[in-house]
């Protein structure tokens, strides 16, 4: 499957609507009505502060995201002592950059090399390292990914456009506990003179989950 194609994981939830009676005056769906009713109940009963709701949503929609993880990866690429700390005690090393907290309290960083390729999944729910990657994409939460990542990891990687040579060992990490996994991708060729900031701009979310490599800048520049 060409990952460049704009498509959505086995889900009907892809029309990017914005609720409320839409431009065509469509009625609210049952789910929208249920959610509205629940929110007014919780607010009326004083169980939820609407301003806190907005702050929670804003944090994960506009502040936390894969740009955080990209900074961790870039730092590890330029600073061997940091990389060592990252692999030995990931939570503490990541906290040096100011990233910590909910769904990332106990981090583990696993390193991709020319011999080993790591891939992260959560087959039972959709556990994901929020402080460094934000909230998970739809495909990560999909039944398709959760069912197959542990059964046919090479096939899944192929669908992301990554064909691994036979001699590379694949290690899948099923996040069944409160450990949260971040893949440290290989630093691509052709980046020798780049700054930490330039490197961070190359690192993708998918590379930090392990379904992609970080493309070398020469390749990425081509159409």
């Amino acid at each position, binding site marked *: 499957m060409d990952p460049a194609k704009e498509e959505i994981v086995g889900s009907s*939830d892809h029309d990017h609507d914005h609720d409320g009676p839409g431009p065509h005056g469509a009625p609210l769906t049952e*789910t929208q009505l249920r959610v509205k009713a*629940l929110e007014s109940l919780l607010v009326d009963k004083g169980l939820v502060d609407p301003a806190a709701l907005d702050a929670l949503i804003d944090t994960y929609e506009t502040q936390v995201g894969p740009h955080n993880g990209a900074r961790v990866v870039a730092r590890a690429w330029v600073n061997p002592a940091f990389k060592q700390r990252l692999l030995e005690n990931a939570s503490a090393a990541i906290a040096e950059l100011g990233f910590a907290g909910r769904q990332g309290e106990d981090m583990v960083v696993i390193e991709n090399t020319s011999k080993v390729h790591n891939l992260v999944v959560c087959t039972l*729910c959709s556990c994901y390292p929020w402080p460094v990657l934000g909230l998970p994409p*739809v*495909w990560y*939460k999909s039944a398709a990914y959760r*069912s197959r990542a542990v059964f046919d990891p090479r096939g899944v990687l192929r669908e992301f456009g990554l064909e691994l040579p036979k001699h590379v060992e694949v290690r899948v990490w099923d996040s069944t506990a*409160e450990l949260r996994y971040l893949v440290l991708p290989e630093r691509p060729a052709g980046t020798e003179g780049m700054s930490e900031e330039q490197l961070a701009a190359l690192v993708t979310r998918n590379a930090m989950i392990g379904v992609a490599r970080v493309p070398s800048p020469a390749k990425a520049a081509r159409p």
Partner: protein
Amino acid sequence: MNGAHDLGGMHGMGPVVADRDEPVFHHEWERRVFGMTLASGFLGKWNIDMARYAREQMPGPSYLNTTYYEHWLFGLERLLVEKGLLSPDELRTGRPQGPAPDPLRVLRARDVGKVLSEGGSARRSQGAPRRFKPGDRVLARNIHPLGHTRLPRYARGKRGVIERDHGVFVFPDTNGMGLGEKPQHCYSVRFTLRELWGPGASRRDSVHIDLWDDHLEPV
């Protein structure tokens, strides 16, 4: 429980297809469900394992036919009623029938940054003595509890090797059922793909699963 959520190894779920530039939320109602779930969690009436267990109790056909935040909505409604914060009548009619039960610790906007960055680790300083060390060969128990478990079905009865000892963590199988934290060692256990899926699987590859002492037996 052997629910639809326990997806590892199932066939027929289709190809993995990624949306290239997807937004964090696809609908306004997803934002609200996300926010309400986190905010309600801070009321302190349930733990994260109970929240997972609540979502797992969505009937299998519905679970597979709905999206992630619909699972969250189902779980949240269930917990709010189960813990007595809303009555089934209130949930059905959408009309409040009285104040909330106790004085509650409600999350305020000014505290959001602080509570998120502090998080809440499931690591504990003390627990049961460890039963295994890295390199030990283990068998994942063949259990099928009706309640919550983090031992996925595809690993049960399979042999693996302890790869690393993560330390002492809350045990979700009891914590999710209101039976206490029962802190014990949690390990990364390496299972070869061949052990999990038979001779057709790649010889070189493996799955690492985080499991606790109570999930494992010595080989």
